[in-house]
């Protein structure tokens, strides 16, 4: 069977089984919404300024506080950090995160600006913490990212989740 024809991994079920094996008694409840917002762009991508948002943080871990909680962090597209903090759940047995472009595609986006596909890249990219607490994401992180995008008059965003 071609890999393309395989069923995608059921991550929620697999994670539940894994955490039960770790001895946790309460299953994580993933966010679930019946309604999904949709805002149709008013102009083509070739005329838009777009921001990149990723779940990885800077390698110096300056997005973490003294209790190791992660917070929204922004870096400059022109000078991305040399290394990234990718200390979170991803498949460490099957791949690696040594190539930043696999989770923060700065160079790829630049090529698409150069060939006219994309209007412009916003000066900053952003780290969105993947937090256990959905409340923290909704009340602190998401509004803070929105504020930072508006500061740079961003018109659309690409979000890449490790």
């Amino acid at each position, binding site marked *: 069977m071609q*890999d*393309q024809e*395989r069923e*995608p*991994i059921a*991550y*929620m079920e*697999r994670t539940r*089984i*894994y*955490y039960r*094996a*770790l*001895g*946790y008694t309460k299953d994580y409840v*993933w*966010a*679930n*919404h*019946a*309604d*999904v*917002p*949709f*805002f*149709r*762009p008013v102009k*083509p*991508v070739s005329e838009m300024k777009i921001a990149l*948002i990723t*779940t990885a943080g800077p390698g110096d871990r300056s997005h973490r506080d003294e209790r190791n909680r992660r917070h929204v962090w922004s870096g400059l597209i022109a000078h991305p950090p040399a290394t990234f903090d990718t200390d979170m*759940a*991803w*498949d460490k*047995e*099957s*791949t690696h995160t040594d*190539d930043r*472009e*696999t*989770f923060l*595609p700065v*160079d*790829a986006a630049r*090529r*698409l600006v150069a060939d006219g*596909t994309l209007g412009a890249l916003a000066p900053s990219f952003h780290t969105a913490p*993947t937090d256990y607490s*959905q409340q923290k994401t*909704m009340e602190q992180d*998401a509004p803070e*990212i*929105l504020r930072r995008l508006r500061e740079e008059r961003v018109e*659309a*965003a*690409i*979000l*890449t*989740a*490790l």
Partner: protein
Amino acid sequence: MSLVARHLEANGIPTVIIGSAKDIVEHCGVPRFIFSDFPLGNPCGHPWNADMQTATVRLALSLLDTATEPRTTVRSPFEWKDDPGWRERYNRVRPEDREQLLALGEARRKARKT
């Protein structure tokens, strides 16, 4: 990440997610989603494959132009490497690992309390 996309979208900033955990993203419900059927960690393409990464971002951008309704998922045409075992490997729980996993969980819980 899905919750952030929803918040931006609800406030007038169109979004597209590139990710590999299809069930989790679609369970949350997002406006636009490029699904890369890869091991978690490299949603934008194979490491060091600039052509694939550029093509994946191009696909994401095209979805901003073309999607007409929320929950629009497009599967990336790219496949993972010649490694048939990757789907089974992630967070697997084998009977012989049970004792070790339980000890790992205990250590984590202890660390959180201190």
